[in-house]
């Protein structure tokens, strides 16, 4: 892998805005993301956090703003100036997108092995044995029993499906992963295990990630930095621990103080 240009961020987001008719969903969001950095975007429903994620992941074109990504050559390229072909290629190789509902990010009726191997097949891998071995290895890494390689995710539990989705995304060694509420909808005990896994993987693979969540504990556990969003605006940003331990904005203070203490 090329050494990233350490003078420029992996992702540079400037002035992202999005409206739906009269309603402004996002005002002027900007931030930088550095290689290997995990950024949490925190807010309640309606805060615009998912809108922001979809905009910068090029799934939903914003009305204004720019998103520049440092491609493997080292240059920062404007994502919205890329052709559809280039964007799709990016989405399948250097980027990952983990959906809240794993069924949205998996082929539910195709085996786990094929789910993991698909990106590789799309990139030209033509050796069945190697594909299978790679898939089995990845199942192991996300703590799914490799014996389930031929089972379809329809037969998996929610937690297993989510872990499979992660494997499917990470198999091409992406440098940036978008995650939309990756643990919501899972049982609390399952969530903890998944978070642990995510933390391990992002560290091991030097993954940069943007994790949208309404759960401050997720931010605390996974993220180096965080953004707090309220009604389409970023109201506070900074190092996770600092923001959570010493919130400056009134809304952040409200969020932090509302977390139920065990």
């Amino acid at each position, binding site marked *: 892998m090329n050494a990233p240009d350490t003078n420029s961020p992996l992702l540079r987001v400037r002035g992202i805005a999005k409206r*739906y*008719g*009269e*309603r402004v969903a996002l005002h002027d969001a900007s931030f930088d993301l550095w290689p290997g950095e995990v950024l949490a975007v925190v807010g309640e429903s309606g805060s615009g956090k998912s809108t922001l994620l979809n905009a910068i992941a090029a799934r939903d074109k914003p009305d204004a703003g720019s998103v520049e990504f440092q491609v493997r050559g080292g240059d920062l390229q404007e994502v919205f100036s890329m052709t559809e072909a280039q964007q799709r290629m990016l989405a399948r190789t250097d980027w990952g997108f983990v959906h809240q509902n794993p069924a949205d990010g998996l082929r539910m009726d195709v085996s786990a092995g094929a789910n993991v191997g698909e990106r590789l097949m799309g990139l030209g891998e033509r050796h069945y044995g190697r594909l299978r071995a790679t898939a089995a290895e990845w199942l192991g890494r996300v703590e799914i029993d490799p014996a389930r390689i031929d089972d379809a995710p329809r037969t998996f539990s929610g937690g297993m499906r989510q872990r499979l989705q992660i494997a499917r995304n990470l198999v091409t060694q992406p440098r940036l992963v978008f995650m939309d509420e990756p643990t919501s909808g899972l049982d609390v005990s399952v969530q903890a295990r998944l978070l642990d896994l995510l933390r391990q993987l992002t560290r091991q693979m030097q993954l940069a990630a943007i994790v949208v969540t309404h759960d401050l504990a997720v931010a605390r556990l996974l993220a180096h930095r965080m953004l707090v969003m309220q009604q389409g605006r970023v109201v506070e940003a900074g190092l996770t621990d600092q923001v959570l331990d010493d919130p400056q904005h009134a809304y952040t203070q409200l969020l932090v103080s509302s977390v139920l203490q065990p």
Partner: protein
Amino acid sequence: MYVAVKGGETAILNSYRLLAEQRRGNADTPELSVQQIREQLRLAVDRVMTEGSVYDPELAALAIKQAAGDVVEAIFLLRAYRATLPRLGASVALDTARMQLDRRISATFKDLPGGQVLGPTYDYTQRLLDFTLLANGQQTAAVPAATPTTEAPAFTPRVVDLLNHEGLIETHEVPQGDPAPVDLTRTPLRFPADRATRLQNLARGDEGFLLAMAYSTQRGYSHSHPFVGEIRVGTAELEIVPEELGFAISIGDMALTECEMVNQFAGSKTEPPQFTRGYGLAFGHSERKAMAMSLVDRALRAEELGEPVEAPAQMQEFVLSHSDSLEASGFVQHLKLPHYVDFQSELELVRKMRANGAGEEPQ
């Protein structure tokens, strides 16, 4: 000693003979004339013209006779006939507001300018088999002559135009340059298809299929709270503008059924609440078809109106790819063609898989 089967040709020629016999039926029974079909089975004729896309009652009647009453087969005959006809031009858009009305009803208003005209309809008959019709041509009970109602005026405003005065119903601007619609019989359907193309496809579409799709929209597979704004049955004038003359001349009348379905629309992020429309049009007296078409037209507008596309009737590719009876019937029935070579391959495969299953596990 096995000898390869020959005689496909003879079989076909024999089948023609048998078919002709079957079509004629018992030779003691008087032969049905095309004229009789045209006059007395006119609703079948209307359907064949509509889906056959040819307004020619006599040809449609002929097709029905040739097809021994199989309406879908008759439609096929008419379409095949049409396919190689030379194109002379396009007519002026039909002005259905100026239809000579035999029937005109609206479910949205109790009364309206032009009145409600019941006209000839099965709607309020009781569906009891009338055995007097078994007696050839002799009616035992004289049907009282229909009392002449006041004739509908030559120009009857449309209900949607009345709603339009209040701005309650959506309007559509004519696109710039008023481009001619794509001719689906000349260019293949591509997706996404615009509304004009969709309406063409639906007009030619199989009535049974559209009826089922329309019905599904009323049963929760998409809701659009439909009301019959207006159904008109009558004749409209067909006009063309020959180049040499530069003005419109009438070349005849066409019997038509038109249905405007009115649906409530709660508004979207960009549009205020208003009524939206579904449109249906068919040749002759074909209310079921026109109504079904209008419901499906509205359902297919879901994306355009910002509604979530969840039900099959709202999915363009699903509806428009399967609406044509020729395509559907042809492909379903093609399964009768020999497939033994492919079946041979499948036989090998199944035998092999069974052999493997009995032996080792697949790796």
